[in-house]
Every structure is written in structure tokens, then in C-alpha cells.
């Protein structure tokens, strides 16, 4: 646990390898909780915020997500996929449940859906992770129809069936476009 000593000395964010982190989370180690938060809070919060578009609600949901990760970690199977995939799907499910709940719909004074992405990008541009460069480049690389379907499914919680209805395109097209979008991402980040 070199990282923890480092953390205590420098008050720096803790980073563990995924294997180390999984081990620590299984042991319910305090380091595991800290590393979990430091490594993933921004990414998860970005997704949650994008879905609910409300800071306070997004922070509550992030907390709820971490509690759920922490308490139901035994159900994570590392053989079936990456830790982040499991966590982000928990976060997305909680967020989507939230925006579909009655009290949220009653209270929401959200922007028009179409403006969502730009709105967030403008508002939170300073908070965008500086380690990852070229968000703009990425957005440029993705074709508009690929980006819209990806954001609809990934950030707005549409199922591919709902997305097909929303965009008025066949299911097969939805799947292909999603695949093409993700292939673009893979190429871009490799």
C-alpha cells in the first residue's frame, strides 16, 4: 500500500491498480474507499450530472452510487468485465430511476433536452478533466448522428429500443450507429 503512505504524506489523491482496488474493496479497507472515490468520483459524477442536470441531486446520487458500490461489492464479478463498467451502470441506473421518479419530474426545471450537452460543456468547462486532452477533437471525430445516439443511450438512459423510437430509425441502425460510435472512441483513445 505504497499509495496510502503517499496519500498521508502529501494529501494527494490515491490511485491503486484495478486489482489492488478490487482487493481493498472486498476487504472493506478504508484505503479502498478513498481510492475508489479519488479514482472514479469525477467520471461517475460527470455521467450522473449529465443525466440529472442538477448539481445537488447529482451529488446525492453520487453518494448513493458509492454506498451501493461499497455495500454490494460482493456481487461484482471481475471475470465478467471491468470495474468501471459495473460502477457506471449502477450510477446510470440510479440516475435514470431518479429522473423517471415522480418527485423529480415535478421539481425539474431542466433545460431543453437538445441543449443538454452544450449547456453542460459550457457550464462545467473548467471542471472537465484536464488529464484527458482533446474533448473537442473527440466531439469533432464523432459524426453528429453517432454522438447523438451515444449520448441518448449512455448519458440519457434511453434503451436502444427507446432511442430507435425517439430518432425514428430502425433498431438495427441504432445498434450499428452505437457500434460505430464506440469504435470511433476506441480508435481515438488508443
Amino acid at each position, binding site marked *: 500500500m505504497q499509495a496510502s503512505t503517499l496519500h498521508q504524506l502529501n494529501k494527494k489523491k490515491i490511485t491503486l491498480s484495478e486489482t489492488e482496488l478490487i482487493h481493498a474493496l472486498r476487504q472493506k479497507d478504508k484505503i479502498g*474507499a478513498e481510492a475508489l472515490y479519488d479514482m472514479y468520483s*469525477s467520471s461517475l*459524477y460527470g455521467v450522473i450530472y449529465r443525466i440529472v442536470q442538477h448539481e445537488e441531486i447529482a*451529488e446525492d446520487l453520487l*453518494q448513493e452510487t458509492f454506498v451501493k458500490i461499497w455495500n454490494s461489492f460482493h456481487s461484482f464479478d471481475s471475470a465478467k468485465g471491468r470495474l468501471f463498467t459495473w460502477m457506471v451502470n449502477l450510477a446510470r441506473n440510479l440516475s435514470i430511476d431518479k429522473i423517471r421518479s415522480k418527485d423529480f419530474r415535478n421539481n425539474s426545471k431542466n433545460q431543453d433536452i437538445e441543449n443538454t450537452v452544450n449547456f453542460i460543456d459550457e457550464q462545467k468547462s473548467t471542471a*472537465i478533466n484536464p488529464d484527458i486532452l482533446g474533448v473537442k477533437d473527440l466531439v469533432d471525430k464523432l459524426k453528429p448522428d453517432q454522438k447523438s445516439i451515444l449520448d441518448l443511450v449512455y448519458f440519457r438512459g434511453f434503451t436502444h429500443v427507446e432511442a430507435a423510437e425517439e430518432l425514428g430509425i430502425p433498431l438495427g441502425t441504432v*445498434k450499428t450507429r452505437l457500434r460505430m460510435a*464506440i469504435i470511433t472512441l*476506441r480508435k481515438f*483513445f488508443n
Partner: protein
Amino acid sequence: MEDIQSYIESGILELYVMGDLSPEEKLKVEQMAVQHPEIRTEIASIESGLEHYASAYAVSPSANLRERVLNQLEKSETVTNLNTTTVTSINSAKSNTFYKYAFAASVALLLLSTIALFVLYTRLQESNQQLAILETNNQQFSNRVNFMIDQLDQTQQTLNILRSPEVKLIKLAGTKQAPQASMMVAFNPVKEEVMIDMSAMKMPENDTTHQYQLWAMVDGKPVDLGVFDMKTDDSGMKKMKTVTNAQAFAVTLEPRGGSVNPTMDQMMVIGSI
């Protein structure tokens, strides 16, 4: 291999990673992934791409949230521990003392109830006794009242008869047979009523085989006016048979039920108008 490639290209793996499959479809993808390494590689690649995409849009939550979340995680851990161990023992201890108190309370309540029941029972018996006494008294009283009403009634009747101007009172005096005997006869010639005053009667008591018989002398012939018994507790006026024109009344002692003709040697009293 062709099949695997088209399976990959169908886009189902992307949906799998984004959690957009039914449990059955999900299970099938997982089975395929176990059998085919190229599917596993593809899935990992998709996951990596999406993870990077999410990081690209990462937003830092407010700084104080870290402390809040970490505290919450610590708390939820202790809560989990509590759930499994302490809570059960607290519960059982609590319920033990609860049952102790409940038992003590029940016993006390039972005792109190028994005492109260006993006291109430005693009082009930007392009340019942008093009620019985009162009822007896009441019965005696009403008997007395009834008796007095009867007497008053008879007296009133007697008085009415005696007061009536039409009524003649004839005193029958004892003969040699019963020198001490005497009785009163009230005769109303207008209403043709004959009554004897039982309370003022002084006659020897008759036995069960004999009865007194009252006779009226009408133009020298005896006319039967009915029989009666001499009893000391009799009172009031006794109505006899009717007669219109009587000059005298007499009483003879006859066999029970009376005779057609008077037994003259058994005449007890006689009186003329």
C-alpha cells in the same frame, strides 16, 4: 469464425456493456464470452472506449463531497456489522426484560383482580341478603295492607248496611240451649236482603258434621235462609237468602248442609222484629 464476427458486428456487445440487455440476453453474451476469447477482447475494448469517453466528460464534484461520501461508507459498514451481531442481542435482551415486566404485571393484575372479585362477591351477598329481608318485609307489609283493606271494606259494607234507614237490626237472643249466645241480623225488607253480622256473633263453635241454619218466620212458618259456620276469625256481614215478609228470625243447629224443616229442640237463638 464468420458467425462470431457477425455476432460481434451486430452491436449486441455494446448494448451488453451499457447494460441494455434482458437478463437472458445478458447470460447468453456471458456464455459466448467464456467460449470465445475474441468476444472477451471485443467487450474489454468497448468497455475501455466507453470508460475513456466518460472520463473525457468527467466533472469534479464539490470538494466537501469526498468527506461526506467516505463518512457515509464508514457508517454503512458499522451499520452492517450492527445488523449481524449487536442488534440481535439487544433485541433478545430487550424482549427478555419486556417479558419479565409483562409477567410481573400480569401476576400483579391477577392478584388485584382476585381481591377485587372477592370484595365484590362479599358485597353482592350482603346486598342479596338485605334484598331478601326487604322483600319479606315488603311482602308482610303488603299482606297487612291487603288485610286492612279487606277489613276496611267489610267494615265499610257493614257500616253502609247499618246506616241504611231501610235496614232493621234484629238481635237474636240465646235460648235454653245456649243462654250465652246472641247474634245480629240485618234485614232490608225493601231490597229483601238478609245479612248476619259475623263479627258480632256469639255462638258456640259448631263441629264439622253440623252447621247453623237461619230461619225466617213468615206467617208462622219457618223459611230456610241458608247455613253458616261459626268461626271465631270470621268478620264482616254474610249475605243470606232473600225473604220479603218476616216477623222473626231463628237459628237452629242442623246436620251439615241444612234441613228442610228446623229441628226445634236445637234452636239456639231467636228474635222477632
